[in-house]
């Protein structure tokens, strides 16, 4: 490589490097921290380091060896951080009921006496292998508990993956609801967007500009403003209900806000531009003389439409649909403001875990699922928009 070529390569790298570093630090790293949070379970390993070491020699089935038991006693004597101890007890109790009282007794005994301790004498539960398994399991700094729980699964006492009891969690229901709302919004956008784009392409002059402007203006307007506008329109005494009542079409206000209908209407409005614009650009690229050509070959207008225009515009519909669906399933603001409790999507649940209950593990696990789904859709979208011959 010549000196000049090496210099330009270095220059290019130097220009790109700051943004690469910035995004690595403030984009990639946060995502990695979140993913780590979803599989990390550090309490046990921090509270019982000696137990973790001694556990290597145990087969998990038979009575634990004495060395393991005494290592655990040593760990209990070493803990001086009450907060950590509390966290550890909570962690153990969530895996196996009965740990709360058991730990209370055992810690007291461990701190009062010195030397080896006969645990079975303190509480008969220590002869139960299941309790030891829970202790040893808790010392693993990584866990798949959150990821399983995000899909309504858990590990039973023997380590097998089983479904959570129906009343314990509703994550699957929320995931399905998210996909369902996303699908409904996507279909609504396609049903409006395709004819809209076709109409825009068929017009010229100010009429086309008006149709395009009507799509672009909402796109450029603040999402909050649009959501607020729908809030005002849809509310019980809002413009829509007022108009319908004064026209005598209905006697009482329709329930439009804080329910599924309102969410779908507002999200369709917000996401419609993402459907119209890809279809419009695809339609624009279709040569103007194809329809006349079809007509000259004997096709009546509706058949020319079905056989020529529709198949050609399908490409735009598919990329528009992917774009809308991908954005819709990650939506937070509109469902949060317009929807009711039964219309919350996965983002709201993630936000609830993260902000409402500081449960990073669950927030991270659900976030990981949403992230993977979105990136997969984006990869398909990328493939579709890069290979031009396809579809």
């Amino acid at each position, binding site marked *: 490589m*010549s*000196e*000049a*070529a090496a210099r330009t390569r270095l220059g290019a790298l130097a220009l790109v490097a700051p943004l690469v570093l910035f995004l690595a630090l403030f984009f990639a790293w946060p995502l990695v921290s979140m993913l780590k949070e979803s599989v990390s379970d550090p309490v046990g390993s921090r509270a019982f380091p000696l137990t973790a070491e001694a556990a290597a020699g145990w087969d998990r089935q038979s009575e634990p060896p004495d060395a393991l038991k005494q290592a655990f006693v040593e760990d209990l004597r070493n803990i001086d951080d009450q907060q950590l101890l509390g966290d550890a007890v909570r962690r153990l109790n969530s895996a196996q009921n009965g740990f709360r009282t058991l730990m209370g007794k055992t810690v007291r005994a461990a701190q009062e006496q010195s030397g080896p301790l006969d645990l079975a004498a303190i509480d008969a539960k220590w002869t139960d292998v299941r309790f030891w398994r829970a202790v040893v399991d808790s010392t693993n700094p990584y866990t798949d508990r959150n990821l399983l729980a995000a899909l309504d699964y858990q590990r039973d006492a023997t380590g097998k993956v089983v479904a959570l009891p129906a009343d314990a969690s509703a994550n699957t229901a929320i995931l399905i609801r998210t996909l369902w709302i996303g699908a409904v919004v996507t279909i609504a956008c396609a049903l409006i967007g395709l004819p809209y784009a076709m109409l825009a392409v068929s017009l010229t002059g100010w009429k086309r500009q008006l149709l395009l402007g009507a799509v672009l203006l909402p796109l450029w307007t603040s999402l909050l403003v649009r959501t607020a506008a729908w809030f005002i329109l849809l509310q019980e005494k809002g413009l829509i209900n007022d108009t319908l009542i004064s026209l005598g079409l209905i006697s009482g206000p329709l329930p439009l806000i804080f329910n599924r209908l309102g969410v779908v209407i507002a999200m369709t409005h917000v996401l419609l531009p993402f459907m119209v614009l890809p279809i419009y650009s695809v339609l624009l690229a279709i040569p103007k003389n194809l329809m006349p050509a079809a007509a000259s070959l004997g096709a009546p207008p509706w058949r020319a439409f079905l056989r020529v225009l529709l198949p050609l515009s399908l490409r735009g519909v598919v990329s528009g649909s992917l774009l809308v669906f991908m954005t819709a399933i990650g939506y937070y603001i509109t469902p949060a403001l317009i929807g009711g409790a039964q219309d919350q999507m996965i983002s709201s649940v993630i936000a609830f875990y993260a902000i409402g209950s500081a449960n990073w593990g669950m927030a991270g696990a659900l976030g990981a699922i949403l992230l993977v789904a979105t990136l997969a859709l984006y990869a398909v979208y990328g493939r579709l928009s890069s290979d031009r011959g396809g579809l």
Partner: protein
Amino acid sequence: MVQSNIRFEQVNKSFGTLRVVDDLNLVIEQGEFVSLLGPSGSGKTTILMMLAGFEAPTSGTISLGSQRIDQLPPHKRNMGVVFQNYALFPHMDVASNVAFPLEMRGTPKAEIGERVTRVLDMVQLGALKDRKPSQLSGGQQQRVALARALVFEPSVVLMDEPLGALDKQLREQMQLDIRALHRRLGLTIVFVTHDQSEALTMSDRIAVFNRGKIEQIGSPREIYDQPHSRFVAQFIGETNLVEGTLAENGKSGATVALPGGGQIRVQPSGAQLASQKILVSVRPERIRLDTGNKADNSYSATITDAVYHGDHLRIQLDDDAFGFIVKADRKQAELAPGDRVTVSFSASDCWMLPA
């Protein structure tokens, strides 16, 4: 004045595994107008870009006079470059475009104005100095590009297909203008084109390129009348080729024997022809269809096709005359397919090439 020739010595250029310029050795004398002619991908533009400094040779040296320039960055080479599609600065008006190279050289303000005016007058654009490039026609943009490349009085001007985007009439006018400027200013001009007629009408010398190598270099007349290879014969103008073996090559005359039994009397070649296998090239406009006339070579043949081209008649002959194409005089417009004619051409119009 010091002679400052442009000298390429053993210059190679590869992009990855693709060798675009293959062992180029070329000297362009000061004040010469040299065209680099070839099909696209023959390496001619790459050579120009190496001369201007936008590409570095993979190996070899380029020098201007006694100075080696192949490692010199483009802004220090002091050559005027006229680009394909002109490359005018779209955000500056005509005067600022032309003033740019003077500004870069720290010329005093007053002098810049004076020289810009002078050069714009020279290309007859004095009235348009406040226009933006987008407000000019193609021909006017081309003149601005020329003025910009000349205003700092470089001794060497490089032109990369500068007339490619103009229509035919304007192109021919600009060919004459550039040729006149060349003579008046004593410039060295290196001119890249794929248009053979442009190269023939403008150049002192033409270098014909094929696949990164010079096929032939010489004056337009040499290139046209004495092509060294089948490629040059076919790329420059149109020609008829017929294969044979060299039977006799003496001072008084030469003869090529044809596989079918006949023979052609040809111009003797001073060059040693490596093989007995020979191609004979006869230009279509040198063949006559007169009956009666005595000539070195004469055959009787049938016309298979005749197409009227306005200024000439293009005639296709049958195998009796080797399937030759003939550009016939328009006076012979009554010739038609099926007519029997006598085909004749002189030995001095038959040029031998290696097969």
